[in-house]
């Protein structure tokens, strides 16, 4: 559906996105994650034709895509952050205007979309008088009016109260049954609740692209903890660090007696590979005893933090 190949975007001297390469197949919900200013909005703006990339190739359905690709834009529904709309218009009139712009039948499509997003009771009110939750629904209705194949939603639940968040998430889930949805967020519960796939962007570069299961499992790093005896701390660290696939070994404090000669370490892998069998075999070879060996379950927040460590650049979200 969407393909980015080595896409970059500069704002003057500032590089907001660099070397972005990924493709999004049809169907499902893709979460675009990253700290503020990471390049999420820039990516979405390029994907929807609001911005032209400074470098690289963007394709929609195998065709090169740019802000002037009028036909391809019909396949996309875009909800910018904070769901801007013409606040002086009635919700109905606004959607009718958009339906006309897209060349779809106003009389059949507008009521259909209003029903789909649950806006029936508020359709004839000026948008400025609607609550934030209802304004968000108007925004979602705007993205759906022309029945697009791809929906791009920039922080669709930002600023909503918990009830509204649940409602909007349910709505997105319902929409994703028939369409491809790309949404940006930095709320991990949202990712967990909605997404099938995660793309993490940090400082304008892709840091992770994989399934929600891989992301949940710790992204590209696995951590295991080991409590061992019969070996010195220095030897243990040296031994484990020499194992293939190990990125680093850190000594940890133990809650054992002071007199105990046990050593606690945390081993980090350079990939998603589970290192426990390898550590177990090494213990056999070297003759040290394993008292504890377990994998650390990393919360999504921790995975996100690990992937996006380091200072962020200036916020690109205008």
């Amino acid at each position, binding site marked *: 559906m969407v393909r980015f190949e080595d896409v970059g975007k500069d704002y003057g001297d500032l590089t907001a996105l660099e070397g972005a390469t990924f493709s999004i197949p049809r169907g499902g919900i893709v979460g675009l994650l990253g700290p503020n200013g990471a390049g999420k909005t820039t990516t979405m703006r390029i994907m929807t034709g609001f911005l032209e990339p400074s470098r690289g190739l963007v394709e929609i359905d195998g065709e090169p895509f740019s*802000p002037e690709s009028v*036909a391809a834009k019909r396949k996309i529904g875009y909800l*910018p952050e904070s769901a801007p709309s013409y606040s002086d218009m009635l919700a109905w009139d606004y959607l009718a205007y958009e339906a006309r712009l*897209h060349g779809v039948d106003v009389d059949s499509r507008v009521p259909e979309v209003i029903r789909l997003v649950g806006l029936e009771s508020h359709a004839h009110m000026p948008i400025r008088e609607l609550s934030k939750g209802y304004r968000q629904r108007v925004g979602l209705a705007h993205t759906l009016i022309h029945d697009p194949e791809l929906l791009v939603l920039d922080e669709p639940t930002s600023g909503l109260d918990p009830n509204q968040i649940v409602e909007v998430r349910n709505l997105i889930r319902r929409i994703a049954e028939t369409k491809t949805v790309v949404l940006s967020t930095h709320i991990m519960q949202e990712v967990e609740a909605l997404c099938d796939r995660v793309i993490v962007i940090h400082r304008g570069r892709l840091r992770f692209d994989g399934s929600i299961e891989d992301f949940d499992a710790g992204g590209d790093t696995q951590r295991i903890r080991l409590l061992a005896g019969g070996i010195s701390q220095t030897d243990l660290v040296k031994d484990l660090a020499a194992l293939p696939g190990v990125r680093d070994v850190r000594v940890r404090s133990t809650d054992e007696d002071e007199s105990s000669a046990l050593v606690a370490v945390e081993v980090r892998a350079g990939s998603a590979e589970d290192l426990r069998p390898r550590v177990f075999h090494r213990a056999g070879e070297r003759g040290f005893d394993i008292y504890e060996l377990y994998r650390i379950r990393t919360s999504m927040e921790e995975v996100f933090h690990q992937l996006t460590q380091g200072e962020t650049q200036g916020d690109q979200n205008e």
Partner: protein
Amino acid sequence: MRALFAREIKAYFETPVAWVVAVIFLVVSSLLFFSVFFLFERAEMRQFFNNLPVMLALVMPALAMRLIAEERRRGTYEILATLPLSTTDIVIAKFLALWATGVFLLVPTLVFTITVGTLGRLDPGPVLGGYFGAVLLTGVYAAIGVFTSSVSRSETVALVLGLVLSLLFALLRSFLILVPAMLVPLFEYLSLGFHFDGFTRGIIDSRSIVHFVSLAAFFLVVSERRLAAQR
């Protein structure tokens, strides 16, 4: 594009903007016209047309300032730009809506023509030429307005820049005394007032039409380029 044009027209007429501007325009033009008309007691519209380049230069930027600047400030431009419209479509639709609104301002002034025609024998040539020129003049100011509204997110900046540019083109020939002799024909040619004068005498000069059309086209192309460059 038609839907965007219709929305822009609605935005002008569903809010008090166009009506307030139209009333102010009519009241001020009436005061300026009739105060002199009864003094000279001549059945002609010259006095009204003489004031028109400056009057429209003051009014059109006020109508134009919201066109793009407001959309960019409110974030709706991001929606507009991702709809199946090219930048050219956006510029043309907004220009046509502003031009049509500007022409609407001229309609009530037909009362002057009717009044003068009732009081004396009015030569139709200068009146028809004058209104034809006024429609073209409104188009040029509309194009300038679209451009100045595309320059900044601030409507105030759009208004001030619109006033400066429109008044400059309206009053260019008033500065002829200040420019070197060799540049006089160029300044005269660029001046909207100079070309508009011809129309108000009932002369439809193709050079003047070309000038008005090319000046409007120039500002529309620059607006399109400006918006495209912001991508």
